[in-house]
C-alpha cells in the first residue's frame, strides 16, 4: 500500500511539472522558433501518461473500498428487483393481450427461433452428407446407360426447382475457408 502511495505521489509530481513547467516552456520555445514541436509533444504525452496512471490507481482504490462495494451490490440488487417488478407488471397486464390481437409472445417467438436453428443445423449436416454421397455415386454411374424412360416432371414446365439456400438464419456452411485476399 505504501509502495502504491509512493507511485501516486511520483505520478502527481510528474503530471504537475510536465503540465505547468515543461509544456509551457517547450510551447513558448516552439512559438518563438527556438524549439521544436517534438519537445512540446513529448511534454504533453508525459503529462498524459502520468494522468492515466493516477486515474487508474484512483479507480483501483475505489474498487478496494468496502463501502463502494456495498453500494454497488445494493444498487444492483435493487435495480434488478425493480426490473423484475416491471417485467411482472407488464406480463400481468399485457400478457393476455397479445393472443387477442393475434401477436405471439416473446417466449413463442424464441421457441420458434430455436426450432428453426435446430432444423437449419440438421439441414446443413444432411446437405453435406448428400453432397458427399453424390460425389461417391457420380463416378459409379457415369458409364451406365439409362434403362428407363425419363419420367415427366411433376413440376410445372418452366418452373425451375429452387436450390435450398446454403445459409439459413445466420447459420454458416460446415466448411470454412479464408476469404480471398
Amino acid at each position, binding site marked *: 500500500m505504501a509502495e502504491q502511495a509512493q507511485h501516486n505521489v511520483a505520478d502527481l509530481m510528474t503530471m504537475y511539472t510536465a503540465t505547468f513547467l515543461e509544456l509551457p516552456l517547450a510551447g513558448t520555445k516552439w512559438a518563438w522558433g527556438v524549439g521544436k*514541436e517534438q519537445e*512540446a*509533444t513529448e511534454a*504533453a*504525452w508525459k503529462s*498524459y501518461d502520468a494522468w*492515466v496512471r493516477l*486515474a*487508474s490507481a484512483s*479507480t*483501483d*482504490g475505489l*474498487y*478496494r473500498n468496502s463501502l463502494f*462495494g*456495498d453500494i*454497488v*451490490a445494493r444498487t*444492483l*440488487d435493487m435495480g*434488478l*428487483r425493480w*426490473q*423484475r417488478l416491471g*417485467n411482472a407488471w407488464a406480463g400481468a397486464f399485457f400478457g393476455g393481450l397479445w393472443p387477442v390481437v393475434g401477436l405471439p409472445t416473446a417466449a413463442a417467438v*424464441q421457441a420458434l*427461433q*430455436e426450432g428453426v*436453428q435446430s432444423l437449419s*443445423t440438421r439441414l446443413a*449436416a444432411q446437405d453435406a452428407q448428400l453432397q458427399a454421397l453424390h460425389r461417391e455415386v457420380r463416378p459409379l454411374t457415369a458409364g451406365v446407360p439409362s434403362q428407363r424412360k425419363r419420367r415427366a416432371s411433376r413440376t410445372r414446365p418452366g418452373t425451375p426447382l429452387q436450390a435450398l439456400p446454403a445459409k439459413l438464419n*445466420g*447459420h*454458416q456452411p*460446415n*466448411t*470454412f*475457408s*479464408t*476469404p480471398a485476399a
Partner: protein
Amino acid sequence: MPSLFNHLPQYWMDGAIRYFEGLRNGLNEPFPFKEDVPPTTPYEVIYEEGKVRLRYYQATATSRSTPLLLVYALIKRPYILDLLPGKSVVQNLLNQGIDVYLTDWIPPTRADSWRGFDAYVNGDVANAVRAVQLHAGVEQVSLLGYCFGGMLTTMYTALHPETVENLITLTLPLDMSVREVPLFGLLDKLRPETLEQITATYGNCPAWFMKAAFTAMSPVHHAVDKYMGLHRNQDKEGYAEMFTRFERWMNSDVPLAGRIFREVTQDIFQQNLLMQNRLHIGTKVADLQRITCPVLNVVGEYDDVVHPKSSLPLVTLVGSSDAHNLLFPTGHVGAVVSAAAHKKLWPQVGQWLREHSTQISEPQTSWSSDTYAH
C-alpha cells in the same frame, strides 16, 4: 498534436458504434455468429452437440504430435486465437506440425440457464474429447485451456485423467483468494440473492453484465487511453487493422449460462473450492491430485485480469511429477496476440507438446457424430 483533436472524435465515435453493436449481439437469442470476423485459418466443423461446436484445423507441417484440443473460455468469441496472420495461436501451432481442434462455444439461450460445470465439463468438453479421439484415431489427447477454458480443462482432467496425455493451462484463474485484481473485491459483495436476481431476471448472466465487468477492470483505458494508443501508433504497419479486429473481439461478449455463472461466482470466486479440492461436479469431486499427466502452466507476468499469483500454485497442487510453470513477460491477451508471444512463447509451447507426445496417428476418413452421448 493538432491531428489528435481531429482524430479523437472519430475514434470515439467508431468505438461507440462497436460497443453498441456488440451490445446488440449480446442481446440476441440465438447469438448471431455471422458477426464474427472472417477466419484467418481455414477449418472444418467436425462435431456439434449440446453447446459446443468443434473446429478442426489440419497441421500445415507433417503432424508430429498428439492432437491438441484447445478449450476456449465461455466468455467472448474464440477468434482471438486466430486473429490475424502472424498473430494466430492456431496458425502458430499448425506450422509446428500440431493438429488443432478448437471449441467454438455456442452462446446459451434462456433455455440453457440450467447449464453448470457438470453440463459443460462432463457433457460438452467430454464429448469434444471423444470427438477428437475418434477423428484423430488416438486414445488420449492434449488439452490447452485459455483462462476460463483453463479452468474447464483442469476440472475435466481431474475428473477424466485417463483421456488426457498432456495438460496446458494458459492464464488459469485458480487461487481466487488472491485479491490483487481490485475488481475481484467487488465480487465478494455479491450476495447469493443478487446472483439469483440476475438469473431470475435474465435466465443467464447477460452479455452486457460481462461487458460492464471487463470495462470496469480498466475504465480509463477503455474510455480514453486505447484511442490515444491508436493515435500514437497509427503510423505503425498493421496497427490499425489489429486494433479494429481486437476491438471487435472485445465487444463480442456472450451470455454466461445462469447456473455456471452462479457456480463460478460462489464456488470459485467466493469460496475457492477448486483450489481446495472441494468442488463437486456432477457426482464427483474435482481432485487436482488426480491430474498425473505432464502439466505446463503458462502464466502472464503482467496479467491484469488473472494475476500470476492466482495461476502459479497449480503445479504444486496437481499429482503430476512433471508439472512446470512457464512465466512469460506478457499480459492476459498479449499471451495470444503479441508479436513476442508468437516469436518466443508459442514455439516453446509447441516444443513442449512435441516432446511430451507419444501418440501420432493419421486422421480417420470416415467418422460419425452418432457416437456421442447426448
